[in-house]
């Protein structure tokens, strides 16, 4: 079978594509058909099953903020996923409460997805409601004013544009909030 591809270009083409498409189809088209949590928005009303809440699509302002997050490449240094690792749930928890693990149903409306691959800065999957607007303003103007040793870039062109700044913070405050994971709805604004 493979020997024939030595002399027949057409046969080589067919064989390369067939072999490629077996895995290609089984790992891209089939998985979302098998695992329906990829497409079903998160909703839980039963505290016994974990944090309650409901995933809602972003508002216009929040989407504008998300576009800024995308434009500035924030996602190159900040992931948005609490992995199934104890260290992730502990490190990205808040005031002694562990962060819930990220599940596919929390990201159904995300386009483009912002899972990220690199944590030059901390994960932001549950950052919504951790810091207030004034903190973000100071931090975006110069992160080192609040966090000594930080290597995050400064973003004066965002802070100096009230509309952009408002949108970006509005988006960030939504992150991880579909799951109402903090006791007594204790979130900063």
């Amino acid at each position, binding site marked *: 079978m493979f020997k024939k591809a*030595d*002399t027949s*270009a057409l046969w*080589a*083409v067919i*064989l*390369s594509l067939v*072999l*490629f*498409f*077996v*895995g*290609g189809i*089984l*790992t*891209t088209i089939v*998985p*979302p058909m098998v*695992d329906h949590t*990829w*497409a079903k928005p998160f909703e839980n009303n039963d505290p016994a099953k974990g944090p309650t809440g409901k995933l809602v699509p972003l508002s216009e302002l929040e989407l504008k903020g998300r576009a800024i997050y995308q*434009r500035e*490449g*924030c*996602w*190159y*240094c900040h992931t948005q*996923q609490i*992995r*199934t690792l*104890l*260290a992730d749930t502990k*490190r990205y928890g808040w005031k002694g409460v562990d962060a819930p693990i*990220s*599940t*596919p149903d929390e*990201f*159904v409306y*995300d*386009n*483009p*997805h*912002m*899972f*990220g*691959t*690199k*944590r*030059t*800065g*901390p994960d932001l999957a549950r950052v919504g409601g951790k810091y207030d607007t004034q903190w973000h303003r100071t931090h975006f103007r110069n992160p*080192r004013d609040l966090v*000594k*040793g*930080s*290597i995050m*870039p*400064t973003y*004066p*062109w965002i802070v100096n544009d009230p509309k952009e700044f408002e949108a970006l913070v509005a988006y960030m405050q939504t992150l991880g909030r579909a799951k109402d994971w903090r006791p007594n709805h204790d979130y900063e604004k």
Partner: protein
Amino acid sequence: MQDQISRAEAIGAAPGAIIHEDTAAKWFLVSSVAYFFIVGIIALLIAAKFVWPDLMGTISWLSYGRLRPLHVNGMLFGWLLAADMGLAFYVIPRLCGVKLWSEKLGMATAALWNIIVLGAVVCLLAGFNQGWEYGELPFFLDVLVVVAWILFGLNVFMTVAQRKYQAMYVTIWYTMGCILWTAFVYLTGNFATLFTTGTNQANLNWMYVHNAVGLIFTPIGLALAYYFIPRAANTPLHSHKLSMVGFWSLAFVYVWTGAHHMIHGPISQWLQTIAIAFSVMLLIPVWAVVYNLFATMKGQWHQLRESVPLKFLMSGVVFYLLTCFQGPMHSLRTVSAIVSKTDWIPGHAHMAVLGAFSFFAIAGTYFVVPKLWNKALHSQSLANWSYWMLMIGGIGFYVTLWLGGFWQGWQWNTWTIPFIDTVVALKPIWIVRFVSGVMMFTGIVMFAYNVMATALGTHEESAA
């Protein structure tokens, strides 16, 4: 079978048999070398920003988040893929014993490719970023990439269809495989993603990201290694059969592994397990290829002393072996828990793209440029220096980031250490990375200068 390459080339090399124009190859190579240099400056700049975060911090289009995609896309598409295409235009007609199907089409493809790269520079600096890794380019540029790829593929396939020798050398399969797989992988990562969201989109994105390396740069890189190693060492390939094992197992195994970029992440556990299993199976095609290329050099290693292309080629094979050992190991859940998302990963990725595949392309360029312009290489000693700069700078870069990344991963897993402390701890690592980057960039400058000086030089010496 073993002396296939020498048979295939015997007629092509005979005086007066076929005169290859090679204009398209020249256009691709000259522009790719120029981008290697230009994007190298961007690379240095972003490495510097890790050490001096306020550097040019008030200019939006020079901020890290704008420059990083330019560095990645510029190196992948402006330098490496363009160089690979230029070298394919050199290699394929020679292995087929015919002229390139259409020199004019090849030149048009090179011109279009330059338009795409320049468009990418403007768009990415302006912040027009689609938000997918490796798929940052805006939609209209994606369309142009597809057009250029079809033109390139058409030229190669028509040349193969007209070949004089019925038996196809392994380089031809790898090049054809690259063209076919790239088409579907690129469409998945840049077009299919448009119709999806969330985890589903991420899965397609990683399929593309992983296979951009595995089914674009790997096959075209190996195509070049399979051609240039026997050619530069003037020795037959060790085993045709083993090259078949490597090629067909690559065709089957590679595409399954995309989800290993989301180990422990919000994606089905069973899909992660499939990705891990196939990632480990990648050792089969890799070791088949590496063994074959090493065995080809048996009794010929002494040639490395004199030949710069062979130095690059065989170091590239070693880096390929190492990077493809790391890859399967990273995919294991326990290892992933430590190294994933850390600075280890850029260390690993640079060893693949710079250490292995760029080394193959550099070797090919050093080998063909004197032949293309029919002149002796401007300076052998400078070429040798460029090798050592890229080699030592490269190792400094990879090893430092592995150590730093591993350490970072351990710190992250001790959650009582505040995150900022893990940032401050890596400062020395980033300083060494920057210094290694300066060395690598020096190597790139020497390489680019040597190539340009050979092409533009007045020495009308005939190539050795």
